[in-house]
């Protein structure tokens, strides 16, 4: 139950990218602490400003001149000192309460860190998210990009680092953020109890396309999750229609293979996102575009128009080639 | 303020015009400089130790700097403090002759330090571009080199000034006293840096 439901009236406040719509225990606890601090500080603020406003109203001089300076009478000075002292005591107590609440929340969130049954490795890149699910049997390892699936009601450990500059992994509905830094491996634990598609965005300035570095966390039932994992671990069947076959030929004969992997083909580069199951994703270009044929075609022919500065070059080609390529990629589910 | 001509006067015309230590404005300025430079050294030493926690071996893949030249220089630095203190005290008495001798002697000591420092740099056993250890130890050393060189040039100028009788006045003796004080700082700040550069890697290794 969102205590700050007052803000629900503001359009968009109950969305899939906000910390005030927590869908898991960590974000929930944080939101409770947020609420406590909000009401406490709001009360202190309003009280202090009221006293200020009343003082000004009561004591303002009506004539525009400067009367001789005077000393505040001792009695009034003493009473005011006591009031100030009292205000200090109250402030310190309130501060202490908020501090303890903060420590308690930190402890509650942190104590789960050892126990997650699932692990997701996230590698930050300029400007996309490499996602791997390490498995004891190497051939079952899932490699994907920009989309993370997790089972609901289960702890999941995110193991994060960066392949280049500092990025920050942040899905506000689920948890606070954690930086992904070269030379460091950061581990933290998340959990989503509500199924849905929760949007995250890079939260550490990482260059010109920092604004277009988003990801999705898809929380689904355990069965759906396992189905997804099995599908992702597998190699897609060879293309079956003339169009998709031609599309594969286009893919393999152009610059695409310099950066992308599609398992089951000779394309094995790890510079850019793994495209083995790109057709199954909701979005492309790190959450920038919807994953449909028109957007994909636009992206492939000139990524620089959409994300200027991105590492992928423009790929001008005959329209038919483009259509076939897009059809092939969309078939990779 | 009001009617100044009718106010009582606080006559300061007999106050001294030449002071040493806390009575000298320049002394305070030099103290400020020492605070700043001391802070830079302290932060660089902290950075050195911080980086040492990020490597499994320290120094990684190399030997620490050779002990010989650094230790020799440290001895020369410490010995120089004797004439340094002597001429500092004589400056308080306005003894031109003593200050001249002291400044010349300290200039020679400083020159010796600079020459030995050259040999220290040749025996660092690493390069600043190889790894973070190399960068840290060279930068820490480099900071002190800049320190040493600028103070030496300063002292040479002061020495020359003391041989110009038309430019010698009370202020100059305060300058000389502060110059000696600053040399203390150059030497005393070297001691912990020497320990960090030459001994810390040997102790950490043990």
């Amino acid at each position, binding site marked *: 139950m969102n205590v700050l439901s007052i*803000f629900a009236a503001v359009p968009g406040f109950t*969305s899939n*990218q906000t910390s*005030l719509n927590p869908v898991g225990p960590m974000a929930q606890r*944080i939101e409770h602490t*947020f609420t406590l601090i909000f009401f406490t500080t709001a009360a202190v603020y309003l009280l202090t400003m009221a006293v*200020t406003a009343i*003082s000004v109203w009561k004591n303002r001089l009506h004539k525009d001149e*400067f009367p001789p*300076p005077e*000393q505040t009478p001792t009695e009034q*000075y003493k009473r005011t000192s006591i009031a100030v002292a009292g205000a200090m005591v109250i402030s310190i107590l309130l*501060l202490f309460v908020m*501090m303890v609440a903060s*420590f308690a929340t*930190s402890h509650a*969130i942190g104590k789960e860190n050892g126990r997650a049954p699932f692990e997701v490795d996230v590698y930050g890149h300029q400007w996309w998210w490499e996602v791997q699910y390490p498995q004891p049997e190497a051939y079952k390892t899932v490699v994907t990009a920009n989309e993370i699936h997790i089972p609901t009601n289960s702890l999941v450990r995110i193991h994060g680092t960066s392949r280049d500059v*500092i990025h920050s992994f942040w899905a*506000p509905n689920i948890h*606070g953020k954690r*930086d992904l*830094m070269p*030379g*460091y491996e950061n*581990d933290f634990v998340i959990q989503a109890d509500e199924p849905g598609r929760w949007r995250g965005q890079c*939260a550490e*300035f990482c260059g*010109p396309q920092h*604004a277009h570095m988003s990801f999705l966390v898809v929380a689904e039932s355990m069965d759906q999750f396992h189905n997804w994992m099995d599908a992702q671990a597998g190699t897609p069947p060879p293309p079956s229609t003339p169009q998709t076959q031609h599309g594969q030929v286009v893919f393999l004969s152009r610059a695409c293979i310099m950066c992308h992997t599609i398992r089951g083909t000779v394309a094995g580069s790890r510079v850019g996102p793994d495209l083995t199951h790109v057709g199954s994703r909701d979005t492309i270009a790190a959450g920038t575009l919807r994953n449909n044929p028109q957007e994909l075609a636009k992206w492939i022919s000139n990524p620089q128009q959409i994300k200027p*500065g991105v590492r992928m070059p423009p790929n001008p080609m005959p329209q038919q080639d483009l259509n076939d390529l897009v059809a092939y990629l969309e078939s990779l589910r | *303020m009001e009617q100044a001509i009718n*106010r*009582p*006067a606080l006559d*300061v*015309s007999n*106050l*001294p*015009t030449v002071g040493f230590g*806390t*009575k000298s404005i320049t002394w*305070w*300025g030099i103290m400020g*400089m020492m605070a700043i430079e001391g*802070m*830079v050294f302290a*932060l660089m030493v902290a*950075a050195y130790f*911080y*980086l040492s926690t*990020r490597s499994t071996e320290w120094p990684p893949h190399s030997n620490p700097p050779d002990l010989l030249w650094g230790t020799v220089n440290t001895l020369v630095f410490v010995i120089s403090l004797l004439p340094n203190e002597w001429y500092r005290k004589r400056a*308080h008495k306005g003894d031109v002759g003593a200050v001249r001798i002291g400044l010349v002697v300290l200039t020679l000591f400083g020159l010796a330090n600079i020459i030995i420092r050259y040999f220290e740099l040749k025996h660092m056993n690493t390069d*600043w*571009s*190889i*790894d*973070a250890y190399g*960068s840290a130890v060279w930068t820490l050393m480099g900071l002190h080199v800049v320190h040493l060189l600028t103070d030496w040039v300063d002292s040479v100028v002061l020495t020359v000034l003391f041989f110009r009788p038309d*430019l010698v006045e009370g*202020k100059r003796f305060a300058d000389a006293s502060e110059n000696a004080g600053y040399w203390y700082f150059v030497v005393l700040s070297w001691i912990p840096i020497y320990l960090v550069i030459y001994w810390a890697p040997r102790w950490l290794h043990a």
Partner: protein
Amino acid sequence: MSPELKTITGRPLTAEELAQHERLDRVWREPSGFIGWFKAVHHTTIGKRYMVTAFIFFLLAGILAAVMRLQLAMPDNHVLGPDKYDQFFTMHGTTMMFLFAVPMMFEALSVYFVPLMVGARNIAFPRLNAYSYYLYVMGGIMLYVAFFCNTGADRGWFSYVPLSGPDYGPGKRPDFWAQMITFTEVSALAVAVEVIVTVFKLRAPGMSLNRIPIMVWGEVVTAFMVLFAMPAVALSSTMLLLDRTASTQFFNPSVGGDVLLYQHLFWWFGHPEVYIIFLPGAAIVSTILAPFTRRHVFGYTVLVLSTVSIGFIAFGLWVHHMFATGIPQIAESFFTAASMMISIPSAAQVFCWIATLFTGKIVLRTPMWWVLGFLFVFVMGGMTGVFVASVPVDLQLHDTYFVVAHFHYVLIGGAVFPLFAALHYWFPKITGRMLSEKLGQLQFWLFFIGFNVTFFPMHLVGIRGMPRRVYTYPPDIGWTRLNQVESFGALLLFVSVCIFLWDVATALRRGPAAGWNPWQAGTLEWATSSPPPSYNFLHLPTVGGREPIWDDPPTQPVVTGLHDDAREYLTTRVLDAEPEGREEFPGPTIWPFLAALATTFMFIASIFRPIGFTIGAIPVAITMIGWFWPERQPAARRREREIWSRP
């Protein structure tokens, strides 16, 4: 306007006083002419230059922000592409923090007012003061020339590695940023030493520690903070430059370097930096409250002790900028506690200020309006600070627009509002003319409303998931409306500042004469003409109270016996300000300017070729030797008059 030749009550000077004025003016007046401009060493001259220069940078940074708000007013907008936007937001932050806030709040105000408020004729180390100004302005010009050549800094005002390092920050943009830091930090450090020495040793006799004006307390504590904070950013920016130009490996994790080393060094500076900006603002508020409530400010001792404790505690907070990096829990707890603890002395100050209002007779003129605006805005910023002090909550709010809102509330609230109060309060003293009360109040309300309209919604849009430093956002994410409101508010701010500039321009030409003390205030700067004469005070004062003009009896002595044919000044003891000695200030000289030119050459050359540092050091050495080389005549004169202090 030239100083008026009258006393504080308007009585014209006697013949004897006029003769003294002539003698002092001959010794102290600033050299005229074009070359003379570069020789100036008086603190009021240099202080005015700092103020004008810093304000120009404020305007430039404001224009950058206005264009940013235009870009963000619509989703997927094309006013600025990502490369330009990244330069704009970096230049905005860098300019505001390094070229406006510290130079204005600390350097400009302390250089101009501290010597006057302690009753001295100049600031300690006047040539260093001139040098520090030239270095500041040259560093700022360097950065902006680079910006206009499309080589503006573009990695954020803090320029984290590895993004700004040799691998991911090609070109010279981060190099110009890093070297600008060196310019401004040497400048600030120099002024810090001058302020400390002025406050310790040049106070008027009788100005014991408990009679030092709060403005001076604020600036001297700030000066100490500068001394211990700035070296850290000097080191971090130098390490960045070395990694980029000399192949050092400080931040390269594959050979033992560490990206967090940069953050620790930067924020060791960065957190005290914001208090360096805020403490003078708080001091201004304490100062202005007195004449506008017609009494001593409430709780002098509490205010001073709070200032000092904030100065110390500020050094214990820096890791709260790094909560998202995965620091150990015990460190998290310590820095949360410290970050919350610092609000205790701040709260004490706020309650003392409110107590002053509660017990005072309030004169509602423009400076007071800005003080009230400060209370409403800064305290709000302090409240949101509690949110980000808590680690778990910060992990949601860090690097979002919530933080942008927080720090604009505390920085604009805590520095810009007091600054406008100070500008309205002291404009008459500096120029001899009054600003318009009507325009002042109009400007205040436009700014206050415009500020809240611009920055309050940022709390909401940050909670709603909008990160910082994004050049655009998608149309369907729900941030559009809030961004449009924010951009509209920026328009109000723009109009407000234009009105201020208009007010200043007209007042300079035909504002009413201010007189010595238009606000009937109590501190020493009001005990001389507006603007002050070249020698500050015809008779150096002694003091017997905290607000000398109000508290001192008519029999309060004045200092006599200083030679008026040289720039002789009085030194006093640190604790009780008893007279101790006499020294001479240097007169106008071109050497500080030449030394600054040489230093500029050395700094700029070294970012292109490291050997530039060594070669550039030669002209620096030459100009510094020229600077310190004594002159024969003055030396002879001093030798003749020497009195040595007893050991």
